[in-house]
């Protein structure tokens, strides 16, 4: 992907259509939390909704030392309630065919805690949640990759799904068309953070290299298989047995994922799938609002409090009309590869 690349810390001018944000009808800001401390930071920074996951394979950020045990999750739900913030629990991996106990347990726990909803992708698990806990609001995860009205309507009619997180492959006009077609189902889109290779829920690159799957184990490039080596001033990143990148001295780095790797062929060496950079759709918030999008989401449960504080504050100010949303968020120093893109929303690479 080689689209709308901005690597300077300076703001980027212009929006897709220049649609203004209406402060009287703000979009819901959905923010990540990997730890209770990050959750408190998100609340303080102005999150409307916070999503987090349990410490196991049931969520797509199953990293060492990250996430919430059941006790912490209970406290997190309570804290959110106290501050008028909606807590969502991400159970966004696919259950094992032979044993889905931990996934069902996660759904039961979220229901017992009276969370504001769960974000799920496994159709069996969505069905289980709908039957067992009919009062538990269901959001369809981006991992389900539902990108047409038929798919969204099916999830709504069969299981009562209230909101769908759209895959990051759609342009703003496509989002507007789908949103209008699936009413009353709400649409939510990512506006900030890491970008995937646009095969969400279906990507097997990490599984190929490590045997562990982002979709089933919750680990894209599991830490146990990631290694960095210094070769003089050059940083080499390895995933399993594969060298996936070499960063020269002074060159900015990205996540150690195969999709951001650099590959060599006879013709050239370069990023085959996508460049290492972050999504920042701050400049098109007005267009997304106009497209009928109900909620905008920040990726990054694996990121720290500094990221959560600065990104959430910046987006909240833009949504509330306190800052000029036609300018980018000024958070380039927090971004992967220190560069940003508006991704598929603009699609100006076509």
């Amino acid at each position: 992907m080689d689209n709308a690349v901005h690597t300077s810390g300076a703001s980027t001018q212009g929006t897709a259509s220049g649609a203004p944000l209406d402060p009287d009808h703000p979009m819901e800001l959905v923010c990540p939390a990997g730890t209770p401390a990050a959750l408190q930071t998100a609340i303080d920074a102005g999150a409307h909704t916070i999503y987090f996951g349990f410490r196991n394979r049931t969520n797509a950020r199953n990293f060492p030392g990250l996430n919430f045990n059941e006790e912490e999750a209970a406290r997190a739900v309570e804290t959110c309630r106290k501050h008028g913030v909606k807590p969502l629990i991400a159970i966004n991996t696919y259950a094992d065919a032979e044993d889905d106990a931990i996934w069902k347990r996660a759904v039961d726990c979220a229901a017992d805690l009276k969370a504001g909803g769960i974000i799920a992708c496994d159709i069996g698990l969505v069905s289980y949640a709908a039957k067992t806990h009919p009062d538990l609001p269901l959001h369809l995860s981006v991992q389900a990759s539902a990108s047409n009205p038929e798919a969204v309507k099916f999830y709504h009619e069969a299981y009562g799904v209230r909101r769908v997180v759209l895959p990051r492959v759609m342009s703003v006009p496509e989002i507007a068309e789908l949103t209008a077609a699936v009413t009353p189902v709400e649409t939510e889109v990512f506006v900030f953070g890491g970008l995937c290779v646009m095969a969400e829920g279906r990507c097997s690159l990490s599984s190929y290299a490590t045997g562990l799957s982002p979709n089933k184990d919750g680990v894209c490039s599991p830490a146990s298989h990631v290694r960095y080596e210094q070769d003089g001033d050059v940083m080499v990143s390895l995933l399993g047995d594969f060298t996936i990148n070499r960063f020269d001295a002074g060159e900015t780095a990205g996540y150690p994922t195969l999709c951001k790797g650099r590959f060599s062929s006879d013709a050239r060496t370069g990023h085959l799938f996508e460049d290492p950079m972050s999504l920042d759709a701050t400049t098109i918030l007005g267009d997304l609002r106009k497209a009928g999008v109900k909620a905008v989401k920040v990726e990054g449960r694996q990121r720290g409090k500094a990221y959560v504080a600065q990104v959430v504050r910046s987006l909240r100010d833009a949504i509330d009309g306190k800052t000029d949303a036609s300018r980018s968020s000024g958070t380039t120093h927090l971004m992967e590869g220190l560069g940003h893109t508006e991704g598929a929303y603009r699609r100006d690479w076509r």
Partner: protein
Amino acid sequence: MADASGLTPLILAGQLARPIPLSFMRRLAAPVFRRWVATWSGPLSNRLCDQTGILSIRPVGWPLCFDLHVGEQGPGSVSITLERPEDSVPTARVTATPEVLLKLMAAEDGPDGDGAFFSRALHIEGDTGLVMAFRYAIEDTGLNLHTLKNDLPRPFIRALEVSTRRLEPVHDRFSRDLAKMQELLLSPVRSEIARLNTRLKRLESAGTGPRRAKVVSRKELANG
């Protein structure tokens, strides 16, 4: 965030401290470390309970490093020792200039390790899982320079505050002077590298021009 290359005042200070015996430094640090471990090992263990190994924090140019021993005395246990980098055999290593490490640890919102890593100011080697878990643990418990400072005996805190206040402007001035000096010293080398790069590119482009098809005889074809 500064790159891990280039001289900084604290790197030079570290070099000047090289003659100080490690045993003396250890004796000096021991009561502070004991206090920190007593206060923080419990809270940290929540996010470190699945980890074992030694995480070595290495300020560039310093004659010593901080080795955190995780899980040696049971799940989630943490202890800390001062080591010579050449003698330390860690499971994971985090390396940055002392300035970058201090800045990360002093940040009000917690260290943005990812940003520092993306900018190449911070280097990670070895067990990535241990580094990640440690980072989440210190962030979640609120461990940073300010809280660590507050765990010190009161006279130490006062002395530290006074010296920090006085040394900060000196450090900033010295950083600027050092940067200028390095720029002056390195500019001839950079010019030479740029010249060689241009020459190399020219040679490469000359070598990748369209090749004329080779005429092959029937005899050559028959011989493969």
